[in-house]
C-alpha cells in the first residue's frame, strides 16, 4: 500500500520525476566512475605486480626498478645468497638495456631485457618458442611492426651505443624465436627479451655480471616482510621492495587521482542528495492537504513517513540502476583517455570494475535516497492536521 501510494505520487508529476531520475543517474554514473578510479588503479597495479607470483623486487640501492641506469654487480653471487634462504622459491635476475636494429637508413631502438627464460616474470609468450638459445630473442608486436620482421627471421642487432664515438659495444645476429607480451611495458614500446648472458656480453657487462633487477618468488605463506628485512641486512647493495611497498609508492605518486575520485564522488552524492530532497520536499508541500486528510482518517505517522521515504528511495534506486550502466560506459571512455599516459603498462587500468565498486556505489545511493527523504517525511509527519485542513479549505 505504501509503495503503491509512493509510486502514484511520483507518477502524478511524471516529467518532474523523470528529470530527477535522470539527474540522480548522472550523479550515480559519476559516483561509480570515481569509486572505480579510487580503487581501480591500486588493484590493477597489485594484480600486475603479482601476475607472475614474484613478491619481492631488488633494485640497486637508492633506486626504484629501472628508474635509473644503475646496475647491481655480482649477480650470480647474490642469486646464490637469495636461493639459500629457505622461503625463496625462485630468483629471476634481469638486465635492462637497449637494442638497435638497422632497417634501411633508419635505426630502430627497442627496450631489451636480459633474462633467464626458465624463471622470467616479465613477459608472456604468445606464439613461437622462448629465447632458450644464446642467439634467440622473443619480441613484442610493436618490435615486429617497427622492424618489419616476423617470427623466424634473423636480424642484425646491436647494443651498448656510445654516443661519443657512434659505435656499439656488441653486435650479434639474433633469431626472432617467438612473439611475446611484455607485462610491465607500454604496448606501443618496442621490446625484446633474450638470454641475460647474451645481453651482458653485448653491453660489456659480462665480466662484472651486472643486472638491473632481481625478482624473488617466495613460498606460499612465507612472511614477505621478514624475507625483505633479511635481504636488506644481508645484501646491502640492493633495496628490497615488496609488493605492498611498491603499491604504497605508486599510491604516493598517483594520490591525485584517488583524491580527485574522492572529491568528485562526494560532490556527486551531495548533488544527488539535494536533488532528491528538493523534489520530495516540493512534492510534500504540494500535498499538504492530502497528507492532512490521510492523517485525519487515522493513517499513522509511521505510514506517512514510510511512504515519503519510499518516494526518495524509488527515485534514487531508479537513478542508480540507469547510472550504473551509464557509469560503466563513462568509465570505459575515461580509461581510454588515461591509458594514453606515456610508458604506462597496457595491463594497467585506472578504472577497474569490481562488483564491490558497484555495490559500494549502489549502497551509497540507497543511503542518500533514504537520507534525502528524512526532512520531507519529518515535515509531513509533524504536520498540524487541523491547521493544514483549515488552510487547505480556505485556499
Amino acid at each position, binding site marked *: 500500500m505504501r509503495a503503491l501510494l509512493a509510486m502514484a505520487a511520483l507518477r502524478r508529476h511524471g516529467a518532474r520525476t523523470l528529470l530527477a531520475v535522470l539527474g540522480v543517474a548522472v550523479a550515480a554514473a559519476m559516483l561509480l566512475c570515481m569509486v572505480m578510479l579510487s580503487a581501480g588503479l591500486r588493484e590493477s597495479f597489485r594484480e600486475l605486480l603479482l601476475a607472475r607470483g614474484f613478491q619481492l623486487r631488488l633494485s640497486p640501492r637508492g633506486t626504484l626498478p629501472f628508474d635509473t641506469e644503475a646496475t647491481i654487480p655480482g649477480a650470480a653471487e647474490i642469486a646464490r645468497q637469495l636461493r639459500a634462504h629457505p622461503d625463496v622459491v625462485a630468483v629471476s635476475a634481469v638486465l635492462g638495456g637497449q637494442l638497435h636494429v638497422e632497417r634501411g637508413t633508419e635505426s630502430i631502438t627497442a627496450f631489451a631485457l636480459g633474462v633467464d627464460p626458465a624463471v622470467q616474470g616479465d613477459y608472456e609468450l604468445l606464439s613461437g618458442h622462448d629465447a632458450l638459445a644464446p642467439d634467440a630473442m622473443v619480441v613484442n608486436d610493436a618490435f615486429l611492426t617497427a622492424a618489419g620482421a616476423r617470427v623466424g627471421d634473423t636480424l642484425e642487432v646491436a647494443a651498448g651505443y656510445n654516443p661519443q664515438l657512434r659505435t656499439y659495444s656488441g653486435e650479434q645476429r639474433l633469431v626472432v624465436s617467438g612473439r611475446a607480451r611484455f607485462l610491465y611495458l607500454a604496448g606501443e614500446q618496442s621490446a625484446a627479451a633474450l638470454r641475460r648472458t647474451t645481453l651482458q656480453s653485448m653491453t660489456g657487462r659480462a665480466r662484472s655480471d651486472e643486472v638491473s633487477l632481481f625478482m624473488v618468488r617466495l613460498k606460499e605463506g612465507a612472511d614477505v616482510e621478514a624475507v625483505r628485512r633479511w635481504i636488506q641486512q644481508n645484501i646491502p647493495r640492493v633495496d628490497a621492495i615488496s609488493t605492498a611497498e611498491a603499491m604504497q609508492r605508486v599510491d604516493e605518486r598517483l594520490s591525485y587521482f584517488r583524491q580527485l575520485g574522492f572529491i568528485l564522488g562526494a560532490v556527486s552524492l551531495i548533488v544527488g542528495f539535494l536533488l532528491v530532497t528538493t523534489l520530495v520536499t516540493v512534492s510534500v508541500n504540494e500535498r499538504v492537504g492530502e497528507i492532512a486528510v490521510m492523517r485525519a482518517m487515522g493513517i499513522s505517522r509511521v505510514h506517512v513517513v514510510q511512504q515519503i521515504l519510499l518516494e526518495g528511495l524509488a527515485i534514487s534506486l531508479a537513478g542508480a540502476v540507469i547510472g550504473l550502466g551509464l557509469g560503466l560506459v563513462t568509465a570505459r571512455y575515461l580509461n581510454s583517455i588515461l591509458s594514453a599516459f*606515456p610508458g604506462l603498462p597496457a595491463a594497467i587500468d585506472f578504472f577497474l570494475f569490481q562488483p564491490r565498486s558497484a555495490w559500494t556505489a549502489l549502497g551509497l545511493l540507497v543511503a542518500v535516497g533514504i537520507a534525502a527523504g528524512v526532512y520531507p517525511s519529518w515535515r509531513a509527519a509533524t504536520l498540524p492536521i487541523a491547521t493544514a485542513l483549515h488552510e487547505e479549505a480556505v485556499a
Partner: protein
Amino acid sequence: MLLSVLPFIFALQGQTRTVAIGADLAADARIRVGDTVVVSGRPEVVEEAGGVGGDVAAGPLADTVVVSAIVERRADPSEISRNDYRVRLHLDQLERLIGYGDRVDRFAVGTADSAATERALDAINDAAFGFQAYRSRDIAVETSTTFEVVSRFHRAIGVITIVASAVFLLCILLLKVEERRRDVGALRLIGLSRWTVFRSVVIEAAFVSVLGSLLGVVIGWLTSAAVNSYYQAYYRTPLRFSIVTGDIVAFSVLLSLVLGVVAGALAALRLVRTAPLTLLGR
C-alpha cells in the same frame, strides 16, 4: 642521479665551494644559508662521514661545501610527482663527485632567431661528435604528453559535470516555477495577460539563475583557493592546480542563464496554457 647531503656544522678551513639547495631539502634537513654540508655521489661516504662524529670526508668522492642559496622549485608540471631533493653544484665539482669525467647530459644552446636555430640544428647534427640536437619546442611537446592526457581527462570530467549541473539546474528551476502555480492563477484572474505572466516567470528564473551562478562563482573561487593551497603544500610546488579565469566565470554564468531561461520558459508555457482556476486547484 643520487646525491647525498649531510648537514654538518664545523669550522671552515681554506677555500670552500658553494651550493644551492632546494627549499624542501632545506626545510626537511633544517639547513640554512651559510651552513656547511658534506656532498657525495655515494650515500655510504656521507654516512661514514657523519658516523665518525666530525671526521669529514673530503677528496674525489666527497666535498665539504657551504650552502649559499636556497631555491624554490619551479612551477613545472613535470616535476610534480618527483619528490626527490635538488642540489645545484658547479659542473666540474659534480662531474668529479659522481665520477662522470668531463661529460654532461645535455647542452642548452641560445640562438638569435628561428632561422639561426635551424642552421645551428643542421650544423650540430651534421657534426660527427655524437650529439643529437633538438628544438626546445619539440622536447616540450614530447615531455608534455603526460599533461595533455591529464588535460583531456579533466576536460572529459568537466563535460560530465556540466551535464550533471544542467540536469540539476533544469530540475530545480522547473520545481521553482511549478511552486508558483497559485500565484500565476491569481495573476491571470485579476487580468494579467498570458504574455506578461510568461515574461515575469522567465525573468524570475533568469534572475535566480544569475544569482545562483554568482554565488557558485564565489564558492568555486574559494574551492579553487583551497585546492591550490592543499596541493601546493602536498607536492611542494608553486604550481597552480586550479584557476578561475574570466572566461570560466563568463561561461558558467552564461550557461546557467541559458538553462534558467529555458527551464523558466518551459515551465511558464505549461502554466499559461493551464486555466487559471485549475492553477488555483478549482
